């Protein structure tokens, strides 16, 4: 049984069908790439998986439970955590306080959170800024902090929305390393990214969407080499 499954998801915004009969599965321990051109519906799918949007039809099954109508909070407590493209840290408290909030929200004690936070901040090269307000961190550091908050109590699955977008290459590598290490420990990820080299490197399988529909599923290489995907990114030859 897959860890996360979507079956026939639909989402309409007014007259626009943003997500059209989307079904795919995420296996435990894999990094699944969710790719597609801009406006293909990836973020809307992620919003439905993480409880920020309710699908108009279809269902989401997580760890053999139908979670379609659960809220973001209920999903987070079940171990389904999401990171946004725009970082969402708490700017007027310190980096370490951000970690404490994340740990306590996951039911950890202050002492336990503090211990885990120190290890994670060290790993994410944020230990030197732990007493700075999160609002003073650079964009890349904020993304790393979000990783730390997400992993203060490792989730069963982490949904990452464009984590490498607009990030300095050094930070990008730090994030990729973090994902690699966690994946080696058995962590499951869904990665939305336009950064194809890193998708190829990190994701064993990928789902490609275009105009709200799934147009290819399979190993990342085979997906990227398939004709519908090439046409979705480059335009079909008939339009040339």
């Amino acid at each position: 049984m897959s860890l996360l499954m979507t079956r026939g998801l639909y989402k309409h915004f007014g007259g626009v069908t943003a997500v059209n009969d989307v079904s795919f599965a995420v296996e435990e321990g894999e990094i699944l790439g969710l790719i597609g051109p801009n406006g293909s519906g990836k973020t809307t799918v992620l919003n439905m998986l993480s409880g920020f949007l309710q699908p108009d039809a279809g269902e989401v099954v997580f760890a053999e439970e139908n979670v379609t109508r659960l809220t973001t909070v209920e999903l987070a407590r079940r171990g389904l955590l999401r990171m946004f493209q725009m970082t969402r840290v708490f700017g007027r408290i310190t980096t370490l306080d951000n970690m404490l909030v994340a740990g306590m929200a996951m039911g950890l004690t202050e002492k336990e959170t503090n211990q885990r936070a120190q290890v994670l901040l060290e790993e994410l090269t944020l230990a030197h800024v732990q007493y700075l307000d999160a609002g003073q961190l650079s964009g890349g550091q904020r993304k790393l902090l979000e990783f730390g908050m997400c992993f203060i109590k490792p989730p069963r699955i982490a949904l990452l929305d464009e984590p490498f977008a607009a990030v300095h290459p050094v930070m990008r590598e730090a994030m990729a390393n973090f994902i690699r290490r966690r994946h080696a420990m058995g962590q499951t990820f869904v990665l939305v990214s336009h950064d194809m080299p890193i998708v190829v490197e990190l994701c064993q399988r990928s789902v490609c969407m275009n105009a709200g529909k799934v147009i290819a599923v399979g190993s990342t290489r085979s997906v990227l080499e398939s004709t519908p995907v090439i046409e979705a990114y480059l335009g079909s030859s008939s339009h040339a």
Partner: protein
Amino acid sequence: MSARRNLWANRLRSDFRAALGMLAVLACVPFFVTSPYSLGIVIVSMYFAMLAMGWNLLAGFTGQFSLAPAAFAMLGAYTTGLLNYHWQAPLALGLPAAVLGMALVGWALGRLILRLRGPYLSLTTLSFAEIARVVISNSHEFTRGDQGLNVPTLMQSRVGYYYLFLAVLAFTLVGLYLLMRSKVGRFWLAIRDDSIGAETRGIDVVRYKTLAFGLSCAICGFAGALYGTFSQLVSPELGLLLQTGLVISMVVIGGIGTLTGPLLGALLVYLSSEWLREIGGIQLIVFSALVIVFARFFRTGLWGLVTSWRSRLKTTPDVAKESS
């Protein structure tokens, strides 16, 4: 080591100590000021300090900009007054009823409106405040309308009232400190800074916002009820938007999102408003101008300025040592 001062727990502790220091100074005032009129002014400023602390809990710590603190004070005062007027309920029952009643009204209102954000939340609380005031003002047979309602006093001694207000203020301060130090307080800060981010981390945003709303309303309701017993008269004027404006200016000038700021702001604004009243009733112009100046140039308020000067003074010797 000095950087650790920036941690929330340490910031809060030093803030709390400063607020306790202010209360200690207030405790000494009756030894030097014996005029009942002057003591009365400080008592009223302590009433406003409670309102300011209640509003700051919601706006400063949780990021919910309500425009109804004065309305809740008015409703709290009327709860105690009406229970006594119609059913001869003693104050021992009327005062807790004001706290509980306002907490419940706040909770119910919170459930209705706290999914709203920004200006919509503010406008809804403003509508609630005005509706409540107009209903009380027009329900002459039940509330005696604009004539006001007599409320029995708790004691005749003005010094006794002074220390009662001080004790309630201290109790509120300690309660807020303990809450802000706990998991609940940290979740409020997270909601203030980014409510979607807080939800993503698994924080039940609506539940914690409702809790803040209920508590804030309970504090304001109790302040109003206590003030009613002190002035022995409650009227719809307690809930005027002007009073809410005064509370907001106290928090903004004192320092929003701190424990000391609302206390400092309430004392400074109310005491100086009495002084400015004597020299020509220009207090509203002065405070409005000050709010604009602080909101534009000193967003952390007076207490924020004090703490930044203090930390500069403390870090300068460290830097000097390191460079030598």
